[in-house]
């Protein structure tokens, strides 16, 4: 196991913990995108480029797009921005 794969694995675990503990939903989705991207690099290191392409397109692309639209539909983004303006803790 070389240094790069260890770094990527640590990054993935860090992302998973960050998603669990982050208060801001928007942050969660962006971190989730980063985790998917690191996962696709790991697939390349494991010599399965097919899975890497699918992971990058679905995990980092479409999944987070749908999550963004859902956040917008439930007006979570507007609420977070409004709370930030009033100096409250965004939740």
């Amino acid at each position, binding site marked *: 196991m070389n240094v790069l794969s260890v770094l990527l694995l640590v990054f993935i675990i860090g992302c998973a913990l960050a998603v669990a503990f982050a208060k801001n939903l928007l942050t969660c989705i962006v971190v989730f995108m980063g985790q998917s991207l690191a996962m696709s690099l790991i697939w390349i290191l494991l010599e399965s*480029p*097919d899975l*890497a*392409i*699918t992971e990058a*397109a*679905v995990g980092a*692309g*479409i999944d987070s*797009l*749908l999550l963004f*639209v*859902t956040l*917008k*539909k439930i007006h979570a983004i*507007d609420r977070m921005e409004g709370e930030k303006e009033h100096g409250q803790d965004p939740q």
Partner: protein
Amino acid sequence: MARIRSDYGPSPRRNFLLWLRSGDECFDRALIDSVSAPAPSEAERGRSAEVRRVPRKEEKVYRKAEAWNREKGTKLTRRLYLALCVVTALAVILLLLRTAALLPPFGEASNPANNEVSRRYIEQGMEETGAVNIVAGMILDYRAFDTLGESNVLFVAACTVIILLRVAAGDRDDAARRLELETDDRMYEPKDDLILQRIAAVLVPLVWMLGLYIILNGHLSPGGGFSGGTVLGAGLILYLNAFGFAKTERFFTYRTFRVISVTALTFYAVSKSYSFFTGANHLSSVITPGTPGMLFSAGLIPYLNIAVGLVVACTVYAFYTLFRKGDV
């Protein structure tokens, strides 16, 4: 007092019998009776002073319990809940790690996965299917029937989202909701964003080229219908975000979505239906694999890839627009 309670008071046995007879409503009736009971006369009040002290006592206990619930109980339950969460998570983690430790080492020659099936795929896959990309040969030739099921799962998912989220242009209620959704969409969406439009003008053709390349070269290089279709759909979504619904509806409407996905799925199902008659043995068909490495080779695989890619691209785009404004 004990006699009064056993006759009229809510003893557990009486409650149980009442509940058996009439379900939950007996409790509601008991509550209504207790609230709307007529005020007792002077004589009754004197007689039942002892009895009335009991409810006051009960009320005190109840108040106390409520206060405890409010002040300490919530905190306690939250702590208990957290502790249970941690314990459950640790148990699951331990179970999974134990299972992973019991697995045979990765890449060992004597692993159960290294049997004659994968050896056959690796050694004769290119010869039998004509696909240089062994994964495409597997999922679209050896296991083409499974892939048909997967495409159908995606199609059924799209149908379900349409049933749940689509607001049809039918009766008047729906028309009102449609208008509301559209104004809502217009309010929260940036229109004619110049930066986004310029970047999309550069990126969208590249993304579409990449998607088409991944689909068309599915049997030659890594990729295939599913990933290429997702890239195509993502490009379509970027185009929609930059230029708005008016531009995309010139070439992609609900009708386009319906026609493309149904045609592609039907083509897939018909072209692979002969495996019903050959006993799922796809290999002895009249379609020859051709020369491996050429664009037009590998029998039906490129065409199946195109069909799957079209279905996936349409579904991804339809998901996005349905989530956003309730229509394709």
